[in-house]
């Protein structure tokens, strides 16, 4: 293969020669913008049907040699509508080009090449820079939420810069990863490697304002060129490049705002709490006034002098500030263009002492060394500092649990001394004796990451129809985490405080070479071909150390204490691929495309190290047919179909290798060695078989346009941890779960759905214009096959996967409320009766966290310089388990409660869902929350519609700006997460902890805040 590629390259280069015309003449002219009459540099002017052409210079002038007779010039420029002009006998042709309001010449970046959207036969969605500019989002994934059909994006945390889940067309894998492949300027970014002191997001290294376009490749035809990693979809991000505009353009944006928590739970104040505590004891047959009773511990509710009142929620949450400063410049000349970007970003968290601070710098440079050789570099650096709190921590003493459950009569700070109090002040055992306010103030949880995602590339035009290009990309991140638990916090005093330092390095390099061939015959046979080779490796490694026994809480360097623990890790994988793609169309009317890729991956055994992936697609642009010529209102109409097989390799790096490690213990003072992982040479890629049928249309002078895709994917050969015979004699199970198991290819999941995108100009009258675009996706997910003959996989006694159900679901008791006669919680039994004391067999599937519909709706109203942008985002048909209510609606125990606990059953005849209060939450020995499995009492519909962003901006008129020498000046005000319509009983239906990226429980989550900001954008 290597030799073949080199050989073909050399052969082709020998054919390089120019075209000669027998008789010639010259045509020249100037290209200007229809909008403001300014000259347009960089416009391609090509003699149709040939490769002969020119590019306009700085002043928009061109000069081209053409045959003596006839001929047509094609003028094209990205972002402008292409135009064809017959030359006739003219020698001067001036042209005014208009912006491309229609979708026809929109370009989709598919990674190794670009394609005109009108010629695309696969399914892809795009988000352009202007749709996401000025959004106060730290990473691009947040910014594109709700803006692309078939792409479900949800915040995994409300922490600034925190993780985001992206699922393109559902969840195809069960054990292996579901994250899409993300490619930034040709660099395939690593999904891991950042801090663990706060929620991490691998896309934080890219300033969203540097982004030109984001293309989401959804079906097999669009993404098959990525073969073995394309099954979860591909997101291609392209950053901005410079313009040959002569004068360098400078843009400065400043934005400042607040981020306020909203919809937090109302919890009991100290008096209500004292009342509830007394009631708990009375109901359990105790006298609260006894020695050691609730009056003594929590106060007598009738006597306010017996208790203090602490509002922990108010203490822990804040209205946070955020600020973004962004500077960019772009410009260049004929040979060289550049884009320069720098930004500073500071976001405080809605939880105190959690913040995100980032600097980014970027230089994108492109240079035409000769007529045939162009060079390209996209360089970025980022420094990121996150001061975390226990984000999404499943710890009862994390802020998201502790703020609501801390005892309200326990003061966080001694009002006389100003010192932090021990927790709780009455000395009982609660939340591990950890004063959460003290903790977040004095603990250090800091992650600092330096990252670069950069690439360099070159393209050599061998002959007009053939080019070779190469690219090397690097994604390097260096991370250092500090976690300091000073001895001044009582729970850490025992070990004298501790310091934990973790240094990680992630290096991820990919390089590719490809040949591009592009030729048109007889003006109607358009042929494009691409062949290439790619190699990628990723290394992740780290070393960490921990010290304790510090003599003073001031100390934070490990050498000042005693060494306690050291550790480290190393991970790597390698992958290579050969790929090829052929596109053919007949006169822009009949389209066909075929892609083939062969990948090798170090994660798979020698027997199955290579896999072949492919896709084929066809399209028919009906609007180009002659019989459509009478239907002038149809500007574009295309139907298309694709089919292909893609791969997923997101499993552990070393699953195929048999390895030994030390067994427990010793023998005769010697070490012991046993097999800790049994290799499986047989495992191979998960395969996704994907089929897509789509239609693209644009009518009424492009006033209404849209895309509808109907799709189905079958993910087969799913990688599961499958038990094997114990008599095989190897324990590959985890510690404490000595089941022998190994990753094998079994099981299938089916996803199917419809993606709809429609948009258009709703109104265009005078200076007023209303643009609207709407996207809606329907999604269905189902496990269709599992290992062996079993149709259920259990975790203990609870099913985790069932054939016929989605890959994730809630298996709970059906809560039947409280018996009005005695205050006891009841559930329905498997056969429909009622019981006080259910078992595992009474559980059932009662919902799932995967939305059935999701999407977004953007409206842009413009009137003269005023623009109002309103964006709604929604998801419907999913449930969430409110794990946090398990604590704060408990009918027993020490936790503070949400105020609706006051509805608890009190006397016979009370109709309520809240069982009688008791000291420990049990009635007659039965946990009223059925904690062994849970009940639908805390299951909530997590459907929501959210007014996600509202932006009002004003562009000062050019007439004024010219007088002060500005290119543009815009002021804007913006709100984010302004209104939410939902039945959800928790804080935020969008943020629920992860399980397969769909969310199952709200326990310990960091909710999103509501953001208000104002900003100014200045263009010079």
């Amino acid at each position, binding site marked *: 293969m290597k030799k073949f590629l080199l050989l073909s390259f050399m052969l082709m280069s020998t054919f390089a020669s120019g075209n000669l015309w027998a008789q010639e003449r010259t045509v020249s002219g100037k290209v200007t913008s229809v909008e403001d009459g300014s000259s347009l540099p960089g416009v391609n002017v090509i003699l149709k049907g040939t490769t002969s052409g020119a590019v306009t210079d700085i002043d928009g002038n061109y000069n081209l040699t053409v045959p003596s007779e006839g001929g047509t010039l094609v003028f094209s420029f990205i972002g402008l509508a292409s135009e064809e002009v017959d030359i006739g006998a003219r020698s001067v042709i001036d042209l005014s080009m208009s912006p491309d309001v229609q979708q026809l010449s929109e370009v989709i970046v598919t990674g190794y090449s670009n394609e005109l959207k009108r010629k695309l036969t696969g399914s892809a969605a795009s988000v352009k820079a202007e749709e996401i500019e000025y959004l106060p989002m730290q990473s691009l994934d947040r910014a594109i939420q709700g803006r692309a059909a078939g792409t479900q994006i949800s915040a995994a945390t409300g922490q600034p810069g925190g993780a985001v889940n992206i699922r393109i067309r559902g969840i195809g894998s069960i054990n292996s990863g579901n994250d899409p492949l993300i490619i930034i300027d040709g660099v395939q970014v690593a999904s891991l490697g950042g801090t663990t002191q706060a929620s991490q997001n691998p896309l934080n290294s890219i300033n969203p304002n540097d982004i030109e376009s984001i293309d989401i490749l959804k079906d097999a035809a669009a993404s098959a060129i990525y073969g073995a990693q394309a099954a979860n979809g591909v997101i291609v991000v392209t950053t901005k490049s410079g313009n040959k505009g002569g004068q360098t353009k400078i843009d400065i944006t400043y934005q400042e705002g607040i981020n306020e928590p909203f919809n937090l739970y109302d919890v009991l104040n100290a008096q209500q709490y004292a009342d509830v505590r007394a009631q708990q004891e009375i109901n359990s047959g105790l006298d609260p006034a006894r020695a050691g009773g609730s009056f003594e511990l929590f106060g007598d509710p009738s006597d306010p002098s017996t208790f203090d009142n602490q509002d922990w929620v108010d203490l822990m949450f804040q209205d946070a500030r955020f600020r973004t400063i962004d500077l960019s410049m772009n410009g260049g000349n004929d040979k060289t263009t550049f884009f320069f970007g720098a930004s500073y970003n500071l976001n405080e968290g809605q939880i105190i002492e959690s913040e995100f601070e980032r600097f980014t710098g970027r230089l994108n440079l492109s240079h035409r060394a000769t007529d045939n050789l162009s060079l390209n570099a996209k360089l970025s650096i980022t420094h990121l500092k996150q001061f975390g709190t226990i984000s999404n921590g499943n710890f009862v003493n994390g802020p998201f649990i502790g703020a609501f459950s801390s005892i309200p009569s326990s003061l966080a700070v001694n009002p006389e001394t100003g010192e932090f109090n021990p927790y709780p002040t009455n000395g009982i055992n609660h939340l591990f004796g950890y004063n959460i306010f003290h903790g977040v103030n004095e603990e250090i949880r800091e992650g600092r990451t330096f990252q670069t995602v950069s690439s360099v590339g*070159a393209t050599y035009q061998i002959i007009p129809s053939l080019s070779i290009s190469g690219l090397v990309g690097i994604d390097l991140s260096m991370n250092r985490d500090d976690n300091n638990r000073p001895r001044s916090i009582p729970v850490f005093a025992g070990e004298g405080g501790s310091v934990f330092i973790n240094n990680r390095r992630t290096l991820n390099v990919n390089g590719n070479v490809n040949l591009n061939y592009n030729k048109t015959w007889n003006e109607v046979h358009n042929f494009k071909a691409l062949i290439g080779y790619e190699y990628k490796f990723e290394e992740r490694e780290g070393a960490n150390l921990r010290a304790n026994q510090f003599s003073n809480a001031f100390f934070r360097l490990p050498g000042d204490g005693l060494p306690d623990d050291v550790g480290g890790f190393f991970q790597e994988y390698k992958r290579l691929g050969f790929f090829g793609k052929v596109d053919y169309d007949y006169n822009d009317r009949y389209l066909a495309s075929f892609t083939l890729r062969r990948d090798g991956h170090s994660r798979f055994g020698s027997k199955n190290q290579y896999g072949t992936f492919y896709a084929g697609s066809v399209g028919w642009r009906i609007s180009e047919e002659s019989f459509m010529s009478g239907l002038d209102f149809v500007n574009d109409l295309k139907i298309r179909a694709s089919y292909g097989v893609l791969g997923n390799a997101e499993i552990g790096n070393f699953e195929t290798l048999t390895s030994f490690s030390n067994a427990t213990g010793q023998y005769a003072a010697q070490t012991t060695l046993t097999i800790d992982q049994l290799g499986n040479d047989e495992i191979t890629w998960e395969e996704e078989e994907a089929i897509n049928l789509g239609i693209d249309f644009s009518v009424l002078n492009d006033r209404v346009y849209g895309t509808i895709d109907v799709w189905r994917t079958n993910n087969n050969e799913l990688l599961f941890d499958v038990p094997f015979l114990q008599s095989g004699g190897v324990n590959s199970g985890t510690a404490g779960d000595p089941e022998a198991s190994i990753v094998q290819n079994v099981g299938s999941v089916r996803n199917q759905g419809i993606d709809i995108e429609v948009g258009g100009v709703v109104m265009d009258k005078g200076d007023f214009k209303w643009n609207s675009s709407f996207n809606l996706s329907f999604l269905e997910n189902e496990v269709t096959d599992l290992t062996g003959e079993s149709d259920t996989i259990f975790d203990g006694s609870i099913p985790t996967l069932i054939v016929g159900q989605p890959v994730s679901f809630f298996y709970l008791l059906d809560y039947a409320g409280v018996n009005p006669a005695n205050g006891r919680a009841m559930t329905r039994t498997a056969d429909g009766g009622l019981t006080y004391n259910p078992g595992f067999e009474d559980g059932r599937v009662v919902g799932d966290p995967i939305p059935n519909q999701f999407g977004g709706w953007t409206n842009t109203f413009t009137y003269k310089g005023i623009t109002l942008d309103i964006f709604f985002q929604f998801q419907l048909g999913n449930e969430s388990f409110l794990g946090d209510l398990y604590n704060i609606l408990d009918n027993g125990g020490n936790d503070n409660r949400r105020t609706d606990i006051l509805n608890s059953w009190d006397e016979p005849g009370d109709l309520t869902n809240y069982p009688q209060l008791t000291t420990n939450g049990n009635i007659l020995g039965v946990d009223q929350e059925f904690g062994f499995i849970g009940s639908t009492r805390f299951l909530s519909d997590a459907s929501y519609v959210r007014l996600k962003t509202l932006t009002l901006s004003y562009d000062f008129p050019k007439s004024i700006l010219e007088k002060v020498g500005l290119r543009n000046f815009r002021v804007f005000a913006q709100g984010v997460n302004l209104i939410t319509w939902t039945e959800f009983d928790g804080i935020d239906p969008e943020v629920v902890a992860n399980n397969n990226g769909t969310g199952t429980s709200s326990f310990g989550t960091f909710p999103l805040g509501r953001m208000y900001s104002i900003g100014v954008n200045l263009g010079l």
Partner: protein
Amino acid sequence: MKSIKLIIILISSAFIFGCDDLDVVDKSALPTDVALQDVQGYQTVLNSAYESVNDFGYYGQTMMIGPEILADNMELIQLTGRYELEYVNAVNSGINIWFNRYIAINECNIIIETIDDESVAGSVDEKARLRGEALFLRALFYHDLARVYGYEPGREVDNFNLAVPLVVTPTLGLTDIEDLPRASNVEVYTQIKADLNAAIGLLQDVTPGTTETRFASRNAARLLLARVHLYEGDDTQAAAFAQQVIIGDGSDLVQDSLNLNLYFDSFNDASLPFHPESLFESELQGPDWSGVDGANNSLHSLLMNDGGGSQFIISPSAELIAEIETESEDVRRDLFNVETLGLEYNKWRGASSVPFQENIPILRLSEAYLIAAEALGPGPGDAFLNALRLERGITTEVPATLDNVLREKRIEFMAEGHRWFDLKRNGFDIPKPAASGETSLLYTDFRILPRIPQSEINLSDQLVNNPGYN
């Protein structure tokens, strides 16, 4: 100029094409070829098999208490969940050593089958020793699997003669795992005897009662072989190997006739970390236990009332005490302490350097005397039985009838896991202590054999469960 650019592009292309390897290294795990490159590597694998002998799921607890409480030697005095089902011989209770034994068997198989490969560095003698020790351990493990999960040859109920799958090849990759049917008891016994005979040829003698007995030795293999012959009813061979053990290495029984406290002291781990009669004893040291789990699961914790936080859930049965009391001279009467909850065994004293911890004797010389007595029977066997009785302080002589030998064995090996198997291999019904509220378990009852783990049955097309389990 143009050619220079072309060359640059060609070179850089070739550079990318030159990257084509897919080899990776997991730095945190030892690959097979490195782990098994020399005899030292094999020794550490063998150590893992040795170490597993004192697992709580094996001789560290299950194999010592299970066979006693399933029969009539023990009473449950506190209900903690442990052994409650075994105490009443409930369905699905019983001994389960399936999983941890097959892991150790695989370690032995790796050594037996691959150590003689020329690529393994090490002397021929070293390889022979390691192979011999692995053969001995594999025999011990299959002996235990066979007697737990199947009937002894000749004692089948309804002709059910299946034992366990006989895995004798190493598993080093998933494809090595074969779905094997259960071999017959005779096939398993044949393998055990072959392994032990080979081991006897490869192993050396060791000094009883010393640290050397933590490794397999020639006499340990002989004693196990004597026992295996006895189990399958081959009395001649059983007697022959038992007598070889008795005269084989110059060791002797603990002579309590000379010193009244000697037998009592022989279980004192502080002064005698290895039992003086031990031919094979599993060594326990501090690192073998992780945290409190070790202490909680120790024999000492379950059987003795230690102020350091033991559980003390089991005491000797009234029937066992009554049996011991029938011989007033028996020094073993002193092996009990009186506690509030009842008597406690003073055998597992957990008095090594790590609290609750002690070495676990697996094969003791006393057993050779009792095997010889039983195999030779009344008359020729009397001397062996009475020699042991004498060293335990009993001067009255009795004939070596099966009843007399089993009575002696019940007492000598109380809390050492022999009782159930001695009754079962003879086809006897299992008597139960009155305190358990249970009547005797008939030998023909299906509960004599435990369930093969259901997860294993589910994964196999070949395995059948024991009768009565489905």
